[in-house]
């Protein structure tokens, strides 16, 4: 049995920030399914929003975020996000982050969608990568213990209180118990629930599903962000920074079609709006080859692309065979980010004492129904730090749960027998088949455009897929690096989350932010200005409404 006061699950930006903060006063370990530098935070490109310029203001950042969220974001949480941003950006600068600079030596900032001011600090178009590696360096310095390629399987309780975690070491194919007082979930999103996603293979929503199974409340799961500009076919992310630096979206006639949908903000309207506009163009016959639209960077010049968007240029060259300086890039929207997640307060505490969450896994909620570009990276460090602080306070006053071997046995037994099982026999069904069907269903029926009958069908078919999943023979066997077993477990997490996403979307009979229903295309504040709270019921999820924090900004029409 291993012992740490605080166990952080996930080694991306939120996890490392939480671990670094907590390590000042507590014994902390980071458990991560990949080596921390390989976390998906590193794929974030555009930047971190923070108010630095004198012409900008915290109030403006708050307002942009509230409006971007289609008034579903909790305004108390958004105030925290926007006011704690600037000092954290400067702190990261002191840690060694290589931000882009303006001629005076201060931090350069660029425009991202839905913002009234260029307020995203950035490191070319590899912002997430540069900050992730800097935090990793600091974690090495601080001596935080890292368990790389270890998987969280289950949370352990003594009564209502967190007592530890049951984990799996992929390299040794062994179960371990880690005793702890606090678990901080920083496991990111579930992009792999969709057939078309920008997300990494690792993004399977493990933390969200494990918290849900342990009885934690989740919220707003129906709000899924679809990024407008991903490479047609492979869905590799092409940063919003490409439009922030002046890129245009064009249909098959070469027309900048955003003029029809967001005449003021044009290409820099929020992502929900741009993704819908692209699909509408395609549906109405103005897509290129009937399938995609163009992201045109050809007027920006080779030098700007090289300096500000080198990764975009590389990705387009490698995966689309295109020189973006001379040829427009074929793009289509794809799943990108989860607004919903494990419900937390503004200190990262979930509905379970001792269980905290920060970053994409959490729903605090700063993004509401639609996230603005540059706000998720900011969220990871702001609420990662807060979770670290909360963990220290909680651990100081909380006595250790006893967690005797007798307490642990009932948790261990099913997993032991799973691992000890014989190699799988022949079966007609497979995790690959089920995942393919589930993810196609999500992209087709729970995607950018949804409607009642489609959602109802999705919920029904998801339940059938879950039944098929239960009948699978787990790919057991004790060999090291058993990715077959991991895939089987991850699929189980994804199916649970798909059920919540589709179920929440069916229940919410309005359109708000990224949740758009063709059969109820209007926002309905009278009935739906509320969070969707979900919890595990006996046979299926139970949904209820939760209040939204409205402090300064009364909901109004959202035009761009």
């Amino acid at each position: 049995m291993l012992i740490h006061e605080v166990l952080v699950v996930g080694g991306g930006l939120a996890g490392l920030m939480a671990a670094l903060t907590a390590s000042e006063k507590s014994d902390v370990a980071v458990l991560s399914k990949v080596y921390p530098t390989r976390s998906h935070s590193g794929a974030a490109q555009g930047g971190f929003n923070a108010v630095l310029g004198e012409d900008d203001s915290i109030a403006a950042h708050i307002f942009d975020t509230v409006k971007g969220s289609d008034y579903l974001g909790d305004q108390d949480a958004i105030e925290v996000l926007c006011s704690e941003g600037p000092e954290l950006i400067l702190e990261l600068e002191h840690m060694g982050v290589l931000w882009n600079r303006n001629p005076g030596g201060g931090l350069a900032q660029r425009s991202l969608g839905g913002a009234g001011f260029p307020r995203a600090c950035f490191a070319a178009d590899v912002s997430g990568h540069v900050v992730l590696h800097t935090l990793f360096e600091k974690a090495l310095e601080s001596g935080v213990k890292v368990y790389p390629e270890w998987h969280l399987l289950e949370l352990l309780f003594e009564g209502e209180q967190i007592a530890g975690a049951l984990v799996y070491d992929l390299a040794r194919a062994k179960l371990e118990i880690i005793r702890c007082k606090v678990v901080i979930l920083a496991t990111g999103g579930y992009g792999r629930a969709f057939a078309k996603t920008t997300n990494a293979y690792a993004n399977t929503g493990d933390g969200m599903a494990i918290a849900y199974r342990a009885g934690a409340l989740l919220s707003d799961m129906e709000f899924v962000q679809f990024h407008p500009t991903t490479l047609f076919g492979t869905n590799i992310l092409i940063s919003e920074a490409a439009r922030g630096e002046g890129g245009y979206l064009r249909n098959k006639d070469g027309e900048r079609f955003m003029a029809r949908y967001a005449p003021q903000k044009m290409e820099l309207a929020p992502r929900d709006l741009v993704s819908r506009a692209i699909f509408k163009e395609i549906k109405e016959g103005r897509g290129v080859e009937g399938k995609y639209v163009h992201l045109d960077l050809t007027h920006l010049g080779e030098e700007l692309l090289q300096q500000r968007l080198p990764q975009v240029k590389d990705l387009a060259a490698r995966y689309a065979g295109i020189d973006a300086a001379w040829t427009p890039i074929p793009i289509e929207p794809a799943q990108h980010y989860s607004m919903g997640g494990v419900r937390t307060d503004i200190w990262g505490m979930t509905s379970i004492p001792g269980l905290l969450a920060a970053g994409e896994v959490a729903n605090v909620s700063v993004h509401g129904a639609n996230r603005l570009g540059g706000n998720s990276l900011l969220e990871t460090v702001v609420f990662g730090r807060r979770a670290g602080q909360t963990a220290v306070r909680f651990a100081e006053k909380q006595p250790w749960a006893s967690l005797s071997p007798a307490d642990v046995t009932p948790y261990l037994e099913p997993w032991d027998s799973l691992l000890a099982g014989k190699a799988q026999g022949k079966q007609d069904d497979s995790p690959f088949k089920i995942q393919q069907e589930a993810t196609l269903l999500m992209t087709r029926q729970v995607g950018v455009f949804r409607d009642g009958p489609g959602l109802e069908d999705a919920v029904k078919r998801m339940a059938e897929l879950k039944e098929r999943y239960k009948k699978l023979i787990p790919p057991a066997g004790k060999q090291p690096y058993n990715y077959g077993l991991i895939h089987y477990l991850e699929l189980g997490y994804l199916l649970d989350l798909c059920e919540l996403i589709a179920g929440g979307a069916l229940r919410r009979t309005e359109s708000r932010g990224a949740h758009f229903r063709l059969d109820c295309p209007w926002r309905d504040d009278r009935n739906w200005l509320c969070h969707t709270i979900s919890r595990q019921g006996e046979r299926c999820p139970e949904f209820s409404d939760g209040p939204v924090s409205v402090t300064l900004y009364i909901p109004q029409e959202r035009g761009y």
Partner: protein
Amino acid sequence: MSLSLKISRFNPEVDREPYFQEFRVEMAGCQTVLDVLMEAWRQDPGLSFRRSCRSAICGSCGVTINGVPRLACQTLIREIAGHNGRITIQPLPHFRQLKDLVVDLEPFFDSLKAIVPWLITRWDHDGCMAPEVSRRMEGLASCILCGVCDAAFSNPGGTKPAAFVKGLRLAQDPRDVLNEARLHVMQVPPVILKLFIKKMPLVCPKKIKIPEI
């Protein structure tokens, strides 16, 4: 196109030494070797290899493809499959093979620690930096710690290429207390340095160039 794969298999629990398993897959030339591996995995879920982002930013999928260490996700099939459509995939050389294409990364990450791989910020740093100074470090800072350079060439007993890149990036940072003193600590003899400078841009997936120092 139809591809015939040879993938190195090794399970320490049962195999005394690695052997090749053959797979046949159908792929388009614009797909990547990672797509090939994912298809092979569907055929045999017992096959182990690391992967995650599929866009050359996480650095997980370093393997040896037809004898050359590179990232699977960054290698297009049409670049490497000749007329016969044969692809051989092995683990990275100079790393210990743990299972199939998975290698031991602990020595690699440990090798970083020797160079004090973090910024020790000067007390008088005021938060400013000239853009051209910052830009000079950008190339080195784009390292994704994939380990491909360490697999391609070595510095026996001395600082390894990836650790050297990180050390060099910090040595150029005006915010750092150690700054250029780092160069003396790292102990890369001139002849090895020449090798690094020559070889790095040829093998690095991020095309990092080591500047003359």
